């Protein structure tokens, strides 16, 4: 399954998503293997955005433009593993997007 599943904030067919906060990243095992079909959740405290990693273990989501990265809680998990930890890498200087999330499942 090569398709990637996006977790866009707004139904794309009803609204023009011209601008947004891009979140992307990967899920890997502790051995470094990229994990497909893992779930990544970004929780703003108001709503969750959910993506599933593609066959290469990557994901990409577009959140509303006004999303504040420091207010977003993230998590990831995959059946067959028992724990996970992640790390955010924000853009340098004044840019607010894109934000990279690296997740490792064990």
């Amino acid at each position, binding site marked *: *399954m090569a*398709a*990637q*599943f*996006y*977790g*866009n*904030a*707004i*139904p*794309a*067919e*009803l*609204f023009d998503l011209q601008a947004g906060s891009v979140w992307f990243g990967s899920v890997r095992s502790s051995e470094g293997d990229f994990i497909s*079909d*893992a*779930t*990544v*959740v970004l*929780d703003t*405290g*108001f*709503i*969750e*955005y*959910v*993506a*599933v990693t593609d066959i290469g273990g990557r994901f990409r*989501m577009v959140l509303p433009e006004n999303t504040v990265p420091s207010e977003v809680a993230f*998590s*990831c*998990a*995959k*059946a*067959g*593993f*028992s*724990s*996970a930890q992640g790390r955010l890498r924000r853009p340098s200087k004044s840019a607010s997007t894109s934000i990279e999330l690296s997740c490792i499942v064990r």
Partner: protein
Amino acid sequence: MNGLLGRRPRGLFCKRIAVPVAQQLRFPLLVLTLMTPAHSMGAGDPKKMPVVLADAQIQLQPTHVGGGASVSLNSGSPTLAAHGAPLLEAELAVLIDRPESWSVWPERADLFPALSELQRRNGEMADGMFSAGVPLMLETRFNPTAEAHLRESGALVSRSVLDREPTPKLTPVPPLPAGAKVIMAAWWPVAHDAPSPLPVWSAHSPTRPSGSNGYLNWQQVIAINPNLTVGVPREMALAGRFRAISEVAELADFHYQQLDQPGVVHWNRDASAQKLSRMVLGRGLVAGDYLVLVALHLYAGSGGLGEWGTLWWGDARSGGELLPVQPKRYRYDSTADPVLPLESDGSPNRCFNPWLEGGLTDAGAGNGLDANCISCHQRAAHPATNFLNVTRGHQRPLAETTATGLLWTPALQLHRLNQQMQANSLGVIPDR
């Protein structure tokens, strides 16, 4: 392997109801119907509709649930009693007790093929339709009376019509007549060879007062174990988190179907189904996996506003009323009016399904827990507007739009067909 649809009474062998392969192939792919669809509203005959709409009193009285409060929101049987609609309970019971009776109704993909075609081509677009990309496996079905009504009212606009007239004038669609029924069922995947997690709604747990209260946030998670020889771990991965398991259920606690290969192929055309199976099972669907029924909406026509019932799987903590049919794990609520009977705080009537509306956020009038299904569907019209603004109280379509009879599906059908044609003109989507 034949498709199976049925339930197994406790302690007995599985009651399997054979469903012809042809029907299995039609097992839906619905994502889009989601908050839209399967219902209609009432306003009398079409000629009177504009008058009725003009007279409709907007009585929007948003009330917010206190932040983090312990609440029980679905009013349950008082609504039924107040409207003298005990038949709705019987309707829901029949749908649960004899799922084969509705499995033969045409599904939305049959009536609105272009909508489904576009969805298949652009599956990822449908992904964001529900709770910001939090999926469910949905199917909407129309009984023959409802189908005939939609055909006669011109709601089923074909692609060829749009080719001739890109912006066809849609005449107002009358509300569904008595005897017409539309349902929307929500399924949850269960692995055939391992326990699978399932979140369970608790009406008494803290909720976000304005944000999403979709299943990702529900505090209780159980495991469904179809194979009793396999142990259930204390924690399981569910949708991006590792969750403690509070209870183990059997398939017999649900109405369920077992997927055969055509069923897997069918569901795999649905982006939401693909996504949900990965969020729950950590993989795609395979033949032999199960789908358990976790929620179901019913809209029963009356020529007016109709009667709306909704049920969800749960326990005593899950609110609503217990549906008196086996397995006794389904709770329900119903409504026949967007306002009455008033809630105990004097606000308009509330009737929502935690699976289907719980994930909706506040758009200015309360979130999905402050919703009445009729209110949302009263706004159904072409051109399609944002149906996500759930609320309570009487609503009406925007000015200069054409009411689609409380049904969002016809409105979205036209919207998508128009969009498809625009995309075709740009060469984005090849025409077939």
